[in-house]
């Protein structure tokens, strides 16, 4: 009997290690490919200059336009998505206890995360045609916001469900309203998790090429207003990869490195912040 259970333990352990190895090795292989292929053409010029004439044929310049464009788009989108998601997540958790509505909303949100981001892009594009708008930073932000809001809402919702009921009771028993309890206690307790959800949604936004294909346009310059078209890193990578010139293709990998570094920095910052907020969290 003991032997069988020990064996079980061993098998389970090896299964865990095996899955870890497969996943981590594949990811490392992707990282390695990107770095090996991209590192040689990584230069200061790439991140400080916009493309000069003939960049896509091997000419000089960099992809500052796409770096700035991607940051503008995803920061704008995450701000909008956050403003929409927080009240939704709070509603799902705190105000709807006596109805079936939250279950239905959660299902809709989950289904919507399965729709390809391209479809969201097309949807916004149809609206743009309707109102006679041209591809721009503004419409790009709207598109990304539309497609990351369900992800963000569901993420925050999931985290708020882990807030212990006794905290809510503690606050209400002191004569606070439900709103005060939400803002001062529930949100505070969930803050580290909310931050993680924000970073995940941001990552989805900044890494997505398809959704803004029709709505944000593409340009070699840095946008100076919301109505200017805007370049993104994923599209810059795509365009550089699709040229027949090996040097330019290498630059695509270098651009991917830049995208990786941005996401890495962001997740590092969020971890540090999250640890600070964790200090007060009740476990």
């Amino acid at each position, binding site marked *: 009997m003991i032997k069988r259970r020990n064996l079980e333990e061993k098998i389970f352990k090896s299964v865990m290690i095996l899955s870890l190895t497969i996943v981590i090795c594949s990811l490392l292989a992707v990282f390695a490919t990107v770095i090996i292929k991209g590192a040689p053409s990584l230069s200061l010029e790439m991140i400080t200059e916009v493309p000069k004439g003939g960049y896509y044929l091997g000419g000089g310049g960099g992809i500052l336009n796409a770096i700035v464009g991607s940051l503008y788009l995803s920061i704008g989108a995450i701000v909008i998505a956050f403003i929409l998601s927080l009240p939704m997540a709070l509603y799902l958790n705190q105000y709807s206890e*006596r109805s079936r509505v939250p279950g239905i909303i959660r299902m809709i949100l989950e289904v919507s995360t399965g729709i390809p981001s391209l479809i969201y892009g097309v949807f916004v594009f149809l609206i743009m045609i309707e109102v006679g708008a041209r591809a721009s930073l503004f419409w790009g932000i709207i598109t990304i916001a539309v497609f990351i809001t369900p992800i963000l809402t569901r993420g925050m919702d999931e985290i708020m469900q882990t807030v212990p009921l006794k905290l809510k009771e503690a606050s209400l028993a002191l*004569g606070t309203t439900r709103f005060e309890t939400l803002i001062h206690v529930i949100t*505070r307790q969930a803050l580290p998790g909310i931050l993680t959800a924000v970073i995940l949604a941001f990552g989805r936004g900044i890494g997505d090429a398809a959704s803004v294909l029709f709505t944000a346009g593409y340009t070699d310059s840095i946008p100076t207003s919301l109505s200017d078209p805007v370049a993104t890193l994923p599209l810059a990578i795509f365009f550089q990869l699709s040229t027949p010139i090996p040097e330019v293709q290498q630059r695509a990998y270098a651009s991917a490195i830049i995208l990786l570094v941005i996401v890495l920095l962001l997740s590092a910052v969020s971890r540090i912040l999250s640890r600070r907020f964790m200090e007060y*969290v009740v476990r």
Partner: protein
Amino acid sequence: MSSDNSGPAKIRVNNFFFSIESNEILKDINVEIPKNQITVIIGPSGCGKSTLLKSINRMNDLIENISFEGEILIDDKNILSRDTDVTELRKNVGMIAQSPNPLPMSIYDNVVYGPKIHGTRDKVALNRIVEDALKKVGLWEEVKDRLKDPATKLSLGQQQRLCLARTLAIEPEIILCDETTSALDPISAKHIETELISLKEDYTILFVTHILRQAKRIADYVIFIYLGEIIEHGPAREVFNNPKDERTKAYLEGVFG
């Protein structure tokens, strides 16, 4: 410690019935709770004593599908009526939960949370509230140098005293304790008991417990509930020494519990 004359009533419960999803939890409760005394509600688990307690600050409102009838009068005002402002009520009727439930913030912020929400903004006033409240529960000396530390860093006993301090900080007239010491070690529990006894001059205290020895230590007035009904109530000495009902006798002798 206990007194035989039960003084003026602070809370009057008249013909109170309470059900959750048509299960009757409390049946025809009629009792008067004396002012500035410790009233202990005893009875076996599941008898409805916590439900009665949580009716007094309307925390039962959080439960789905409840229904009730009758009256609970605090200073002659029926708090079950529809126009009761529950935030106002709960400011007046503080509650300490079964296990410590500090808020996700610092020791200092836990105490000022209530007063701030109820309108105190002045820093000096808030500092004084914190010091007073923590002194009343005997926690000040232990934490005065680390008020900014997370409340969760305190021991469980300290956390429960902090919860008591947090309640005192909103200046209630009534304090409800729902088996408040059951998650604590004996020394911390004793600490809380001593503090409650010293607080009763200024507060009307209701304490739910299923520990008879504890009830005997702190009670001035006793309510015995069994299967949702009040079997017996009266000054502690009378109920403990000369129980009138057979069921009270049996419970006190430990026949069931």
